[in-house]
């Protein structure tokens, strides 16, 4: 049988204890440095900015990022598998318009929700099939569907906001539980579900494997194409759900809503350390990324900073985060 190897595993002996524990602390800090940096800033803001750390403001902040947070979960999967999706903003708008129209016709909330989810699923499916099976670049494919779906939203609504008077619909996003409103609960649920999917299921680990090395994943017996379709499909469904919630919050389906939404979602993911090269992602990072975006906007509002400057600050934060991240991982 196997001959014994006299030279056994040759790994250098561990360094002295004090040294190693210090190194470990440092490594942990670096690993979670985004979380740490965010917490430091958050505490500083709580002391410095009036009204920031109040229950009301915190809930408002959470509500303002709830749709971005939901879709960031699925965008994380998309980026982790080395793909890209620009169409989510248009799906949010179209799903909102569609649900409003269906509710106006049927007077039934759930028919509207179903229509929104179904249309999101269909668009996601089409994206996935074109990207996975026809092997068209994801950026181009979703750029095209982004335009087309936005067009559909305008066509369906004749360019007008579709108002809804159905009480259930307004109650859908307006209701709250334990003082926390529905959209926030939904977003929390998404964080938990997708965090679990990523870390503890074959679906999640396969996503990371595909992003890490698609060819190796295929030869290891992963159905790469089918996985990619599912990733886009789920992304479409969640974007559809975000669309209904947004429409419910503003009590109408608006074809020009969620402009630039996709870029905010991708920013949140990248802020959260999701690699655009695929293969690495963490839900904790995405949550922090979403909250960095939300906090920045919230604080600027509290400080009465002109909305035009907010674009500048958001871009600067994104750039700073990726530069820091690049420096951190360069040695690898």
């Amino acid at each position, binding site marked *: 049988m196997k001959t014994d*190897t006299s030279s056994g595993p040759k*790994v250098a002996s561990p360094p002295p204890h004090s040294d190693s524990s210090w190194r470990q602390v440092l490594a942990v800090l670096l690993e979670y440095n985004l979380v740490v940096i965010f917490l430091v800033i958050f505490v500083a803001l709580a002391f410095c900015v009036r009204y920031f750390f109040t229950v009301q403001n915190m809930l408002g902040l959470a509500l303002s990022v709830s749709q971005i947070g939901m879709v960031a979960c699925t965008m994380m999967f998309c980026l982790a598998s080395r793909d890209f999706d620009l169409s989510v903003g248009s799906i949010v708008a179209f799903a909102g318009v569609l649900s409003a129209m269906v509710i106006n016709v049927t007077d039934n909330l759930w028919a509207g929700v179903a229509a929104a989810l179904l249309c999101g699923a269909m668009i996601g499916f089409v994206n996935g099939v074109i990207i996975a099976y026809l092997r068209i670049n994801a950026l181009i494919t979703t750029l095209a569907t982004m335009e087309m779906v936005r067009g559909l939203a305008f066509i369906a609504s004749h360019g007008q906001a579709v108002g809804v008077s159905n009480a259930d619909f307004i109650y859908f996003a307006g209701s709250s539980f334990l003082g926390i409103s529905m959209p926030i609960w939904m977003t929390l649920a998404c964080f938990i579900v997708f965090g679990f999917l990523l870390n503890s299921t074959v679906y999640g680990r396969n996503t990371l*494997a595909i992003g890490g*090395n698609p060819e190796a*994943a295929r030869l290891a*017996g992963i159905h790469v194409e089918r996985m990619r379709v599912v990733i886009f499909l789920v992304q479409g469904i969640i974007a559809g759900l975000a669309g209904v919630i947004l429409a419910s919050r503003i009590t109408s389906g608006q074809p020009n809503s969620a402009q630039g939404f996709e870029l905010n979602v991708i920013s949140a993911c990248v802020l959260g350390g999701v690699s655009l090269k695929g293969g690495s992602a963490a839900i904790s990072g995405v949550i922090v990324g979403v909250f960095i975006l939300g906090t920045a906007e919230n604080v600027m509002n509290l400080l009465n900073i002109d909305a035009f400057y907010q674009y500048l600050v958001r871009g600067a934060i994104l750039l700073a985060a990726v530069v820091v991240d690049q420096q951190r991982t360069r040695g690898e």
Partner: protein
Amino acid sequence: MPASLQLNEISKRFPGVRALDRVTFSAEPGSVHALIGENGAGKSTLLKILGGIYQSDSGSLIVDGTERQFVSAASSIAAGIAIIHQELHYVPNLTIAENLLLGHLPNHYGYFRRRDAIRTADGHLRRMGVELNPRAKLKTLSIAERQMVEICKALIREAQIIALDEPTSSLSHHETEILFRLVKDLRRQGKILIYVSHRLDEIFELCDACTVLRDGHTVATHGTLAGISRAQLVEEMVGRKIDDIYNYRPRSLGSARLEVTGVIGKQVTRPATFSVRTGEVVGFFGLVGSGRSELMHLIFGAAQTRSGSVKIDGQPIRIGHPIDAIRRGIAFCPEDRKESGIIPIRSVSENINLTARQRAGLRGFFIDFSREFSVADRFIQRLGIKTPNRRQKIRFLSGGNQQKVILARWLNLTDVRVVIMDEPTRGIDVGAKHEIYNLIFELAERGCAVIVVSSELPELIGIADRMLVMRDGAITAEIARQDFSEHHVLSLALPDEQAA
């Protein structure tokens, strides 16, 4: 101006591993100095320090009597050092001339002077004695020719010290000869050449001196190779005696396990028909481009079959995707580990469990991590995978250990019947090779039908029960073990004009 090179007491550590521990190495002008050692011995790290890609923790680097600290690749290049890496860096869509002169293209206020570039490049190529058309795009060249271009680039920069890292690992016999001629020319011109290779035959043919590394230490330095035996070098590299690294063990063979009939693909142009019995190790020999790798992809469902059929244990099967093949008990270790074997940024444990987890647990959805971890730990121990722990990202492992992880991925399945290994020992050191051969025999003894594709003839002669030779997209010969001889097999595999 002849240069001299001296590395004194170089140490380098990475998190958890001491890659180099006071390594000393020196080389003389006008000589070829071999640097050998098992994978993970520190050869690549040493070259990277020389090339300015890594910085040493301690020790000194002396070029031409002056101590140098290379802070970047550029500073090493400026000091006249050129490293020809295993993976070549070039722009595939540009011509040879453009690749050679990249960074200082001849121009007139920004306007590219194509004719000047081609004339200059042609001059350089001629001076090197390489017959290549400077107008040809890099992507149209063979790997050997691309290597020539890379070496030529080093010479244009007037490099005095040229290190070649495993240059022949993907070259054919004929291409290797061309490379050797070039290396000998450079020696005559008084350059310092550092030659890293696993192939001891090449070391004896080409090199004047030799330094052996093991586990980050300098084990031996031979000023001359005269009077030094192959066995001695192997022993120094491995740190133990390996009498026969193949350790061939005859087995009793059963019925036909895998039957391939008339399979045709893009490169396999003539119908391929063969079978492998239970417990049998069949070697596939052929030059690069002979269709041997594609044939394996066809059987595994990783490439589209144009016609033909595959049977396992007499049962005809339809294979359209690797998943189908895996379900039928076919395992496949691909040729290019980095490109298509490992998921580099994931852990050893994940790489081991990648395939098994697709069917384990609740219909392949939830993961049983405690089971996966114990499986990973078991294989790390059983196969002697050198890694700090199962959480280590696989890309930090040496080639041999990566290959063991991929093997573990398949051994992890319970019902493997056919194992296809494409170049299982490429770029792997002698000690790890020995262990992989043992695993191959172990698989065969368990009743697997094993196919080994290799371009190292001695390896196939050492381990195969039977050999099939491929040439120009067809299986051209079948040779039984008692008729194995290097000359015979080579003459069957080489295209006619090259036949010995």
